[in-house]
């Protein structure tokens, strides 16, 4: 009986020890060894390996009575000036900007215009011709 108790104590202690060891093992689901190694990776044919994206920006000019020129600045949300040039407000402009892939908005400034342009499908647009709701008094 005494021997049987000793065996039981040893068995329980061993199980407890194994349990502790198991807790210190890395999670099998997150070990780097289980991840696909780069050399074996199947990468989509269309992937360009870039952390940036090209955004086509389209700006519609306003036919003005007299030439209205000002500095047109397009920036990232953090203020980085990507496009910055003297611009005639009546001119239509199409340009391509390269921005971080995670960026979803651009900022546009021209005189007192201070606009946020949303990027959708790698495109952003702005028009100096206002959107008018009739009857609202513009």
């Amino acid at each position: 009986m005494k021997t049987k108790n000793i065996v039981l104590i040893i068995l329980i202690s061993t199980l407890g020890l194994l349990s502790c060891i198991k807790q210190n093992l890395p999670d099998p689901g997150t070990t780097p060894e289980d991840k696909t190694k780069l050399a074996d990776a199947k990468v989509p044919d269309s992937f360009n390996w870039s952390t940036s994206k090209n955004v086509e920006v389209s700006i519609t000019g306003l036919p003005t009575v007299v030439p209205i020129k000002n500095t047109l600045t397009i920036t990232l949300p953090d203020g980085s000036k990507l496009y910055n040039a003297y611009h005639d407000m009546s001119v239509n402009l199409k340009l391509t900007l390269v921005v971080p892939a995670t960026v979803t908005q651009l900022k546009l400034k021209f005189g007192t215009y201070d606009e946020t342009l949303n990027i959708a499908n790698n495109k952003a647009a702005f028009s100096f011709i206002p959107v008018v709701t009739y009857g609202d008094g513009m």
Partner: protein
Amino acid sequence: MRMKHIYLTIILLGLSSGVFAQQLTLNAESGNSAIEIGNCWRFLDYEQYTSSGSEVISGSYSLKTQMISNSSSINDTYIKTPWMKVGSGNITFKARLGSGTDPISRGVRVSYIPYNASSPGTSFEGTLVTFYSYDFVVTNNSVVNFIVPIPAAIANSTSLYKIMVSYLGQGGNGRVLSDDYIFPGTYWSNPANSCNPLPLNVPTDTDGDGVPDTQDEYPNDPYRSHNSYYPGLSQFGSLAFEDNWPAKGDYDFNDLVVGYNFNTVTNGSGNVVELISTFMLRASGAIYNNGMAYQLDGIAPNKVSKVAGNTPGSFTMASNGAESGQTYANIVVFDNFFNLMSKPGVGIGINTERLAPYIMPQSKQVVTTFINNGVNPAGGTLTLAELNPALFNMYMIINRERGKEVHLPNRYPSSLASTGLFGTKDDTSNPATGRYYKTSNNLPWAVDIIQGFDYPIEKVSIDLGHLHFTEWAVSGGVQFPDWFLNLPGYRDASKIY
């Protein structure tokens, strides 16, 4: 350039003195009142221009008020001009009553509004003065030709005014149609400045390049005015290359590691003057003597006037500094990294092994000039939109073998690339399909990180240092687009230099 400054001054003085008498017209023929509103006309209780044959007074479009039934104030339904310097003579326009039921009264009032600099809360509009009044015969729908003399108090004044034409009336629901407004005077509103008046004085433009000093980043340089940056002011993107092409390498992406920043300088006409490229040479864990260049995709070499600051070594440059024999402008930044940064004598290269001494990165600036002191290049000028960063095709030249170029995946090789190497060993480039610099499972020989990049140590694949790199690639860039950041769980620091 000084003459240009004087010429501009004369024009503005002429405008202010009425020498160049003008008139403001409003005839709705743009077909879109938003264009007039953008040009600082204001409409209250108006509809979009009408093109209905029964309503048009002249041309293809006329103006139409909303229904008038209880409008007793001149502020209820009106057309207001932009700010203007009023001339002399008559304001003229046409108007008639539109269809509607039983109007009791319909009238026209014409007023002027002086500029009041101390009243920003009213858009600088001062106290309105009505100087003309007319009441329609409500049973008569005929067009009335209005001829309204400009009051002497405002005629040819140097002060600024708006003219307001109001329609009012009682009873019924009839509208008023109008057209062919002519207001003698000179337009003086600025659509880019919340429709406030244009400046009365000529803005200071010291260098006479047409850009006011307040907006000119080079106020004393007639040839330059603005800077645009890629990836941003004082920010560096990173290029990291493998140099075993066309065979696979060890994917440590440290055979050549270079930071890049571009400043595209434009002039007052919006044309590109120069491209100031700054490269930060950081590491080369290589035996090969690797070089670096960039191609301006689609830009002819004769658009370049000169190149300064580069070290092309024995590669052949044309007289303008661009590389000879190229279809598009190619600028060789350096032919041999190790000529610019000396190996410490320990380890395989520079700054990829911890046991070797650290060598301070070197900055190399290359200026590609397009318009040289106001002189255009033989091939003509480029706008900022035409020379955008998407065209900056940066690449490595392996071991000074000119034909062995390594570009970012699917970027075009230069004309001097050895096409015979395409499709050999592990490379699956196929010019016929536009596929370049990828293995059969689409792995690259170069990566471009648009911001700072901590590259792996020697002989350690990038995915062992940056733990989400492979997930980013396999997902086509959808997962972990920020894999290069130093976030918890994102990297094994022991494998990054």
